[in-house]
């Protein structure tokens, strides 16, 4: 559902960069869309548009609280 493990043939720097990219995408939530598309493909359903998907996530955030600490 996200960036697959870099092929082992690549050098360690390449793999490290791919790792950082994977991590940042996961942390920022950008990877959520890819996961959704992959799930739709597995289940054979038609995915909604990216715009509609992100709007849906915004709506969800609107009704939750995101606690930030001191």
């Amino acid at each position, binding site marked *: 559902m996200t960036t697959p*493990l870099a092929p082992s043939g690549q050098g360690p720097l390449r793999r490290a960069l791919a790792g950082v990219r994977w991590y940042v995408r996961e942390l920022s939530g950008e990877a*959520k869309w890819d996961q959704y598309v992959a799930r739709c493909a*597995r289940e054979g359903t038609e995915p909604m548009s990216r715009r509609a998907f992100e709007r849906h996530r*915004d709506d969800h955030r*609107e009704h939750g*609280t995101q*606690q*930030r*600490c*001191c």
Partner: protein
Amino acid sequence: MSTSTTTRRADGPPPERSRRPLPRSIAIWTVVALVGATCWAVLALSRGEEVSALWILFAALSSYAIAYRFYSRFIARRVLRLDDTRATPAERLENGTDFEVTDRRVLYGHHFAAIAGAGPLVGPVLAAQMGYLPGTVWIIVGVIFAGCVQDMVTMFFSMRRDAKSLGQMIREEIGLVGGVAALIAVFAIMIILLAVLALVVVNAMAESPWAVTSIGLTIPIALFMGFYLRFIRPGRVMEVTAVGVVLLLAAIILGGVVDGSALGESLTLSKETLTFLLVAYGFVASILPVWMLLTPRDYLSTFMKVGVIVLLAVGMILARPVLQTDAVTSFAIEGNGPVFAGSLFPFLFITIACGALSGFHALISSGTTPKMLAKESHVRMVGYGGMLMESFVAISALIAACVIDQGLYFAMNSPAGVTGGTVEGAAEFVGTLGYSITPDQLAAFSASVEEELVSRTGGAPTLAFGISQIFSDAFGGGLAAFWYHFAIMFEALFILTAVDAGTRVGRFMLQDTIGNVWPKFGDTSWRPAAWIASAITVGAWGYMLYVGVTDPLGGINQLFPLFGIANQLLAAIALILCVTLFCKHGWWKFVWVPAVPLAWDLVVTMTASYQKVFSDNPAIGYFAQADRYRTAREAGEVLAPATDVAQMNTVVTNSTVNGILQASFALLVLVILANAVVIWVKAARAGTLPTTEVPHTPSEVVAPADFFATAEEKKAVAEWEASRGEPVGGGHRR
């Protein structure tokens, strides 16, 4: 609600066969222990010679490593008996939104971003007036035995209870009285927290057109990002954050340009003006849709947070700064320091809250994070490990404050009432403290960062100066003024994020509470309710902020102890819950794990509260202070630092308000404690009591337990994913 009586042996995981440690592992941990012991020995024995700050850094890192490897493992295996055969709430209740099985390292990032803010940056800077040693010892020992334990154990209990919040658990496990007291305490403590954080920003922005410009520009930058993500390219968080960071850096440079121009005059704002602007901003930000301001600001502040911490760690190693402060100053013993009053015990332990023990984390560790845990074993890494990282931030801040010139440190952190706000006045006052700095030296320091530095209290300017000095030494280039304003911006950014988010949380709490008696008010999409609840929340912290800003005695001096005690009292509430649950589960053998930090925390907070309320020393006791000024006012005198009758009145009112708040917080905690003791006694008589722990449900998820997966774990995950035909919990990487 399902109940189950757990005797730990009955439903614990099958006992793991303990393997004999490998020789390599023994060798590594021996080296780590030796490095740690050496660093501690140097710190403890050096007096009156040049001590490198790196001793503190490595004492901290090796202590953290040992604590994580041994103590957190002991808690995970023997005390809590984390059981990976049990499904977590994320697995059982997965709904694709808040309950979601999440990769352990990604969750670590989320949890850390949620717990770490400006707190660990401010407290250690203020506590540096007592020298570097007390702060270092408390941050490291405190986090290992109290802070991490609170976060981890609270997270564990919440995870075993469908990720319930702290308040809900207290109501269900302790009782209604405790639950109501906890609800009031959490709300009130949050208000003080927001007011103090806002005060730090106001103090950093006052009379500084550079800071006002660059921090003001973060609002249009965040709005731009919000609209970009909503309308132009939805979901492309990384690209828009990169653009945002570039714009932030441009805003810092632009601030420097404005500073020297005619526009600078009109952006030189007083603290009072900034207070009104910040209150108005807080209100608008909390009722705007979150996609517009809050979400994009959060991306920026998370990025900056991680970036600056990494940069600071690298900078310290490159610059190898020398500690300027004494190991222990006389203020630690005599309690007459200008930054905050009171002696080492108990005031050091409440001034440094975040970074050693922070009650606020219990609100994140219950409710939010447990909804995303993939496996029970991850509680150790996310709960204990996340707090260690925050402690590292606090240690970095302490180092930054201890490597600057001590005359400058006291000139910056003494209230304007005693320094008169001038370099001459500050040099004279610092001289009376036993430190020396000339007006010329002070002026030179100011010129180096292009900012007035006298009486810039609140911690942020001091930290910014320290960071600027470390970065200038490490990376060269004569960019001291840029780095100073960079550091100010970085702190302001996540304080403002905390203010936005905190106001929203306060609004939801109010709506939820009032919704119990008037259901319509609890509807979060009903505008009038949202606006009223936001206005009440903003009004409450805005009032406290105003109290701090106008206090002739210095707002930080007066309010920071209140904030510190409040935060530690919240920690007491969380630890009371942990002890209660240990008693109810019958885990008597290990009850000391949460009970020792609880006992220490209660001793500290109750002593501090007692002194703040009943001390007859006007520098410490709020009511003694109010009395002193009231008596003088009636005799027709004006006491310094007040300059007229109006300021005398302000002191009397503020000190009385602070004293009443202080007393109420302590009483609320005593109510919860009394309620809990009843349960402890019942549990002791019965051996165990039923709790709301959900019964064991077998888990199917397979995931590695710690930061780095072992070869066996990787193999197990690969087999499991192959059998399912789809990856779970954040993808393939491990």
